[in-house]
């Protein structure tokens, strides 16, 4: 055998070959069993504090979280509470979304622990306070696809990601459920946590369910994970998920859903082999039911359903109507359970779902049904701020899917209480009107003027159409025209479009008399 060390320097072009010098022998052979090793040599650290210390987190850095635990989440409050206790300051909190349960962040903002927030949505007391001027640095709102793209491209750099996982093995293979045994918590897909795991400098998994290696299947591979913390306090199952998304019996939602299904049918996008995405709102879910009827009657097959997945989509998959499910977020336990048993129910990450940087799944959508808080006469959509100007919503995948799908259908009641849904100008533009094709309300349908092809087809099918202005006037004839919301000059939120450009701002509400 050649003595490699003696000839190493004489190898032609050795400096141009990618290598690390001559072979110097291997380490000592591993002797114990893998079970013994799993117990001793692994990524499990004894406490959250220890994980934070080892992660190298410093003041001013960016930490990130996912929102798959929805309003049952305890990871954000647990981690930020610990960081406050350890004396960290001036952090950027980049969550995939935040909800009502995160009100304790108000104190952490006041005390200087959190200086800046990035999220898809805000609700509850935290949102109210931010709308009243809690933070100096405006909150940055990103869509799910926009956030994924910003993380991929490095526009958003995450120093340490703290990711809750309902199952994880000692090396960090983590998932939103377990095929072995769920320890009361299950959230299905971990799609919005995966870009964080992949691109963050350090990744800490917090789990209530440490399973044996290998945790299979996994959403997050161990190669992306640095530390694992076992804690029984990652979330409250009741707030994370309910059994099944209940089917609406509200006649107005059913009417809107039926109209939306008729629009889709007439538009030509309901054909054998189509693709779709449905929101989880009452009317969108009900639309799926009418679409199902049409599919059965006409013998049509759906190639794939995308997005936030509900039990409704799962049952259509299981009765053979939908070939594939691409699941970035499981909306109910039925969807989460389906991930365990259906091999063509695929978990996907936020970038695969909707990043504008590549041909993501939203670009393969034939149609999407989306809801809206406000729609204006330019078809712009607001899903973020309420009729009082206060932040109370989430961008979610709204602009991503509206842009990606060949037909975007936005459903809304014409009026909510005494507030018209169709207005001259929306409070906050989240989804630009140029990506919205049809607006369906309980009192009429309007097609975007840039889609004469759709308009012709709907007319041919005998569907009565109105202009968006006619719908606005109809709404005002019923409930009148509300006084404009009063804002102060100060900007409290910046809304990013999916390609990371600023599309609108949210201002502080003016409550002075």
């Amino acid at each position, binding site marked *: 055998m050649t003595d490699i060390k003696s000839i190493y320097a004489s190898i032609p072009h050795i400096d141009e070959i990618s290598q690390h010098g001559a072979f110097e022998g291997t380490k000592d052979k591993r002797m114990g069993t893998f079970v013994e090793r799993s117990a001793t040599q692994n990524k499990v650290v004894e406490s959250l504090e220890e994980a934070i210390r080892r992660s190298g987190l410093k003041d001013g850095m960016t930490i990130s979280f996912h929102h798959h635990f929805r309003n049952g989440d305890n990871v954000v409050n647990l981690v930020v509470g610990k960081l406050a206790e350890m004396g960290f300051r001036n952090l950027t909190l980049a969550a995939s979304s935040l909800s009502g349960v995160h009100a304790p962040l108000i104190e952490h903002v006041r005390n200087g622990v959190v200086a800046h927030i990035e999220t898809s949505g805000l609700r509850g007391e935290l949102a109210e306070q931010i709308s009243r001027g809690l933070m100096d640095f405006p909150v940055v709102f990103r869509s799910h696809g926009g956030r994924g793209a910003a993380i991929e491209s490095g526009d958003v750099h995450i120093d340490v990601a703290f990711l809750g996982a309902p199952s994880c093995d000692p090396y960090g293979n983590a998932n939103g459920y377990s095929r072995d045994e769920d320890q009361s918590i299950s959230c299905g897909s971990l799609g919005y946590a995966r870009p964080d795991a992949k691109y963050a400098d350090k990744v800490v998994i917090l789990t209530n369910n440490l399973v044996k290696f290998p945790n299979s299947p996994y959403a997050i591979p161990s190669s992306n994970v640095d530390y694992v913390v076992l804690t029984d306090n990652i979330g409250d199952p009741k707030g994370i998920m309910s059994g099944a998304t209940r089917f609406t*019996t509200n*006649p*107005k939602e*059913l009417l809107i859903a039926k109209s939306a299904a008729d629009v889709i049918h007439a538009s030509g996008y309901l054909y054998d082999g189509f693709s779709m995405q449905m929101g989880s709102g009452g009317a969108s879910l009900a639309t799926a039911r009418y679409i199902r009827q049409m599919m059965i009657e006409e013998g049509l097959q759906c190639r794939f359903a995308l997005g936030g997945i509900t039990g409704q989509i799962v049952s259509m998959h299981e009765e053979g109507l939908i070939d594939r499910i691409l699941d970035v977020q499981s909306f109910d336990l039925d969807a989460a359970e389906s991930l365990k048993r259906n091999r063509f129910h695929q978990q996907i990450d936020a970038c695969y779902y909707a990043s504008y940087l590549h041909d993501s799944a939203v670009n393969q959508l034939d149609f999407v049904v989306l809801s809206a808080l406000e729609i204006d006469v330019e078809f712009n959509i607001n899903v973020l701020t309420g009729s009082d100007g206060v932040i109370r919503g989430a961008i979610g995948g709204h602009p991503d899917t509206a842009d990606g799908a060949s037909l975007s259908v936005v459903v809304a009641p014409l*009026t909510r*209480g005494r507030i018209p849904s169709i207005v001259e100008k929306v409070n906050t533009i989240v989804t630009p009107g140029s990506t919205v094709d049809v607006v369906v309300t309980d*009192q009429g349908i309007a097609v975007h003027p840039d889609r004469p092809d759709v308009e012709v087809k709907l007319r041919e099918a005998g569907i*009565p159409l109105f202009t968006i202005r006619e719908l606005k006037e109809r709404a005002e004839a*019923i409930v009148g025209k509300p006084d404009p919301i009063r804002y102060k000059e100060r900007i409290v939120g910046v809304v990013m479009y999916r390609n990371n450009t600023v599309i609108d701002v949210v201002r502080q509400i003016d409550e002075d008399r």
Partner: protein
Amino acid sequence: MERKRLRRSMMFVPGNNPGMIKDAGIYGADSVMFDLEDSVAITEKDAARFLVFQALKTLDFGKKEIVVRINDLNSGLGIQDLEAIVRAGVHVVRLPKTDSAEDVVFCEKEIERIERAAGIPVGTTGMMAAIESANGVLNAKEIAHSSDRLIGIALGAEDYVTDLKTTRSDGVELLFARCMILNAARSAGIDALDTVYSDVNNEQGFIEEATLIKKLGFDGKSVINPRQIDPLHKVFMPSEKDLEKARAIMAAIADANAKGSGVASLNGKMIDKPVVLRAQRMLALAEVSQTDEGEEV
């Protein structure tokens, strides 16, 4: 008032619920009936009357027939209801608990008085009478013939079964009343309208009842939830086979007329007048059934 029109569905809307009143027009019911009577608590009567008055004056319900169920005229509330809704231009006043022809005549006199006072042409306001007692059922013929303003008579089953000392079951308990009301209506040339089916979540039971009353010959039925409208209209929609036959009959008639023959026949059978009448009615029904969706949006 239109005496003759399609009345497959008459949707009850509580008169004190602004949200439901504002949306009443969007569900495709042939008639909308705002209720001032049993669905409104006694403490809410004035508010409901005011609300319904304003709704009739300001909201656009398209071509829908607007009916208001008033309170019992003996209670004093009924007259106040009439004062408001006749002035607001209601199409049809629904008189509850009609026991005799005199009830209708009394109500008609009050309507006429208000029409005159308000400068509304006398006879503009239509009426329908709800029969809800054994007495009313036995007087059905006199009630049906009691006024030119009547567009129809209806069965109100809940009070009626109580009066009979029974409860609602499979419909056998209502058979006599339904037949009486139907025959009385036909004898007077007005519509016969069936009672409500209150178990909103039992769509199958609703469809069975609707099928039964259609077979008997009723023109339509009251509904208490918009979700009942579509199934009801489907029951009233003639089948494609029936339509084909009706079209063939009308074609044979046209053919006979063209030849100057007074007698038409189809497949060797002579077509007599009732057959033609039924075919015409069916084709007219099919036409509206197909086109009415969305006309009001």
